[in-house]
């Protein structure tokens, strides 16, 4: 499963904010850290602010800060603001038996994806970041030698 850019930007930002909820972080700092467009990121942060997940802080030292509960906010809560999670159908409204059968299989995958995203909170994601994820070592070695 691949997440759209806006969802990724939202999650990158939220791990930064929730990692230190007392700190105001400037959008530019996040844009630089993740090498993303500040303009694009600003739109994503505005949506998170509209949802009450982050709060914008004006003035010197301003930026954004975390305004939600990291133990309650799930990945699905965030991603669903930016994309339709689980839209895996053949887009043919079950016209043929093959469409219907494929839709049933894709529906299974969608349900698993939704259940997974709904069960992982931001707090759990932060904890996962501290752990060694299987396969990540080999991948980072490959990246550093590339």
């Amino acid at each position: 499963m691949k997440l759209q850019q806006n969802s990724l930007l939202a999650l990158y930002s939220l791990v930064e904010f929730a990692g230190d909820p007392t700190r105001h972080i400037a959008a530019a700092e996040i844009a630089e850290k993740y090498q993303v467009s500040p303009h694009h990121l600003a739109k994503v942060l505005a949506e998170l602010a509209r949802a009450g997940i982050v709060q914008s802080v004006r003035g010197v030292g301003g930026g954004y800060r975390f305004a939600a509960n990291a133990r309650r906010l799930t990945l699905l809560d965030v991603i669903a603001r930016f994309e339709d999670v689980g839209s895996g159908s053949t887009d043919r409204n079950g016209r043929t038996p093959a469409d219907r059968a494929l839709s049933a299989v894709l529906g299974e995958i969608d349900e698993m994806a939704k259940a997974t995203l709904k069960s992982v909170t931001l707090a759990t994601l932060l904890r996962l970041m501290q752990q060694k994820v299987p396969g990540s070592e080999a991948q980072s070695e490959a990246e550093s030698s590339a």
Partner: protein
Amino acid sequence: MSRRKAARAEATPPPVPRCDLAIRPVRRGDLEAVIAIDTQVTGLEKRDYWRSVYRRYGEAAAPGAQFLVGESGGEVIGFIIGEVRDWEFGAPPCGWVFAIDVRPDARQSGIGTRLLESISAGFRRAGVRKVRTMLASDNTLILSFFRSQGMMAGRFIPLEMDLDG
């Protein structure tokens, strides 16, 4: 209270002090509290089922089987049940947790974590190095709990079908 303060208060509910919570094997006298917690959570009283679980995992538990309760202030406020299963589904011996619950008014204070820590310690003593569980995909609360404890999707996929007629 401001929304920020409210969110912070929600994030840090008053914990049951670790010293006030005892995790111990179930006793016959705990069964009513266990049934009451399950009934409160599921909305369905399953008295016969719990008696049979108690017979298998409580008083005459086989080696590797555990039925633990969390007690605070003289009251049972949570429980966990599991056992070591050998070569089921082709898997080497591992610990299975098949029931966990905490009284709703005592949640978010680390009791589930203590129960899981205790049963995991029992599994380690029994010589296994992996713990598994399975639950409904829409049981978000308990799924989130297990995720928060570090559990990830395993290598098994549950399958089912309706048996007609």
